[in-house]
């Protein structure tokens, strides 16, 4: 898998082929998603009240979205009361500037980072790099991706597209370790030695957040390695970026999410490292805490009645692991830090309708519905995909352009017209039956023109029979 950093974002269908042809990627991903899928099914299957939990999760999130203005102010108040500082960021540039300034004020040139997709969303590492600040990823998989100059391809397992021998080669090169095997324990040990030194010297830690509790001001990062714990406890200053949709109202709500999240994401009954902090505590942990509240398009998602459920997402990645499209193309085809089904609905909403790559994502699904079935907060992803397709078409109609497929709206309009009149519909059936004669060879259609040729690339088509059902019905009565 080559780095995707240099690739110009293109429509999903244009780049998918490159990834589909990558045999190593297909094998790595197929193996990884199958394994985690089976594990998830087991730990979810043992929960008698799973459906009730999902419904609770959905309702808590729905309540948050309906009252987000109030919860945000409550969270700000709680964080300040606990000794933290709250910053409001309208967009990525805003957030990056705030964070860079905080780091520069301390005179630091390196920070340690907890795995965070939100900071990837805003391109924090690159922004800091321009200010002469190195942001070191400390999650093992994020570190691998960063060392390779690559981009994450999965929400939870950013290096899912790499196997251990690829990682061994990378560590040999970047860490200068000659005799490194591809045994997971040895690889982890190499990373551990490298990172431990960094942790002990870091003055500033940067994190995202899984949740923030409005009533207490508590910010939460759940992780599996303990490296997040290092970042959030050892440095003197901690800066956390929180997408505003990550709020939960009360501490009690963890009862629901701490059951839903680990079983859906890592397929574990309980998450190994659960980091909770509330402002600052004298003599214990960071003495300065900054919380950056990030909008970056979220309020416009909230304004869309159907689309807003997308904000319920708790980033478990269960939808990626069951998605037949993601399993085959991998995450890079989505040209977003949010790949898979959730990315296909979140990215286009965050980026707006004029981003060509993002606008293609709602079509990167066969609408099979496997994602909705596993979503722990019951986001109806297929329904939102259909909604966004319709929204996109309306937008294009308003703007008066249809890039690439200008023929489509004409055909759709004509077909809808024919379906409204029986005579026209029956005539169209007859015309198609005659028209197909151009393409029928030896009783089968194996080659079709224009866009339909992608059908016959791999599939034959049975010709339209001599008698339609309705013609047969007429002969009966």
């Amino acid at each position, binding site marked *: 898998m080559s780095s995707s950093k240099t690739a110009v974002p293109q429509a999903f*269908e244009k780049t998918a082929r490159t990834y589909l042809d990558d045999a190593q990627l297909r094998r790595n991903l197929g193996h990884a998603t199958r394994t985690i899928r089976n594990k998830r099914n087991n730990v979810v299957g043992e929960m008698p009240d799973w459906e009730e939990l999902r419904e609770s999760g959905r309702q808590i999130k729905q309540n948050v979205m309906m009252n987000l203005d109030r919860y945000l102010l409550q969270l700000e108040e709680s964080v300040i009361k606990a000794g933290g500082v709250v910053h409001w960021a309208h967009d990525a540039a805003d957030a990056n500037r705030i964070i860079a300034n905080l780091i520069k004020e301390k005179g630091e040139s390196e920070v340690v980072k907890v795995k965070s997709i939100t900071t990837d969303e805003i391109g924090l590492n690159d922004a800091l790099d321009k200010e002469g600040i190195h942001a070191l990823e400390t999650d093992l998989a994020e570190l691998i991706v960063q060392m390779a100059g690559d981009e994450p391809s999965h929400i939870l397992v950013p290096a899912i597209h790499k196997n251990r021998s690829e990682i061994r080669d990378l560590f040999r090169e970047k860490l200068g370790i000659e005799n490194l095997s591809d045994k997971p324990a040895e690889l982890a040990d190499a990373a551990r030695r490298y990172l431990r030194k960094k942790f002990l010297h870091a003055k500033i830690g940067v994190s995202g957040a899984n949740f923030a509790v409005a009533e207490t001001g508590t910010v939460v990062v759940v992780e599996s390695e303990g490296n997040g714990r290092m970042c959030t406890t050892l440095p003197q200053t901690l800066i956390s970026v929180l997408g505003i949709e990550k709020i939960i109202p009360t501490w009690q709500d963890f009862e629901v999410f701490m059951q839903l999240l680990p079983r859906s994401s890592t397929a574990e009954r309980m998450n190994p490292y659960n980091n909770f902090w509330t402002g600052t505590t004298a003599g214990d942990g960071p003495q300065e805490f900054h919380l950056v509240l990030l909008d970056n398009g979220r309020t416009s998602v909230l304004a869309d009645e159907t689309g807003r459920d997308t904000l319920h997402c708790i980033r478990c990645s269960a939808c990626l692991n069951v998605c037949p499209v993601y399993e085959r193309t991998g995450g890079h085809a989505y040209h977003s830090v949010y790949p898979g089904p959730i990315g296909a609905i979140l990215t286009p909403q965050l980026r707006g309708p004029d981003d060509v790559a993002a606008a293609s994502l709602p079509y990167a699904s066969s609408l099979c519905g496997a994602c909705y079935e596993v979503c722990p907060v019951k986001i109806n992803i297929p329904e939102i995909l259909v909604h966004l397709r319709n929204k996109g078409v309306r937008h294009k109609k308003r703007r008066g352009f249809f890039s690439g497929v200008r023929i489509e709206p004409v055909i759709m309009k004509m077909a809808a017209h024919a379906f409204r009149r029986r005579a026209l519909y029956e005539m169209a059936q007859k015309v198609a039956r005659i028209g197909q004669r151009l393409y029928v060879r030896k009783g089968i259609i194996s080659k079709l023109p224009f866009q339909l040729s992608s059908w016959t690339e791999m*599939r034959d088509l049975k010709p*339209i029979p001599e008698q339609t059902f309705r013609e047969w*019905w007429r002969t009966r009565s």
Partner: protein
Amino acid sequence: MNISLFIACFNDTLFPDTGKATVRLLERLGHRVDFPMEQTCCGQIHNNTGYQEEIIPLVKRFVDIFSDSEAVVAPSASCVAMIRDYYPKLAILSGDTDLMDRVDRLLPRIYELSQFLVSKLGVEDVGAYYPHRVTYHPTCHGTRMLHIGDAPLRLLRNVRGIDLVALPGAEECCGFGGTFALKNADTSMAMLTDKISAIKATGAEVCTAADNSCLMHIGGALNRQRSGVKVVHFAEILACMD
């Protein structure tokens, strides 16, 4: 029972045998079947591709045609799923309160064929005979939108002479997805390849399902590969007699 058949434009034009089989089957079970000639398309392709506005007249049409029916039965899970899940939304989009009301009243009387037989009529043995090795592919919209569960399988298990074999990874999508197969042809083909391998591994001579659209997709590849496996809608299996 008086049953109105909604054949779906797709079956009407490309798979008339499925319609004929559905009629024969329902009549054999002692019901009266009626086929309202005005029917055309439910609008699924438009809906799923982004052209909802164009099909609001189709919703009105459908309701006009079938509102007096005792039961509407369709041998197409995805069309029934479309009607059940999206007609209420499209009615709201139309702003026509009368239409919303009429859609709500019609919906409980619309059934996919296997659901109708198993849940509504309580029939699992339709007296069919089909001496072939068959594997069943549960289509996505039937499984996850309509929740038809194992209704088609219950019916198939009671067919005499059938050698019904389980399909590995049965609930994985075949990659059809309507315009997905054209817009994302490469990914669709990758999915289809795996489905075909699974079907061939069963050694079945027939692959069946509740949707001819998915079967057209699967069958298209089976035929291209000269696999010797054919696709048949389950209604056609149930209609077969000794």
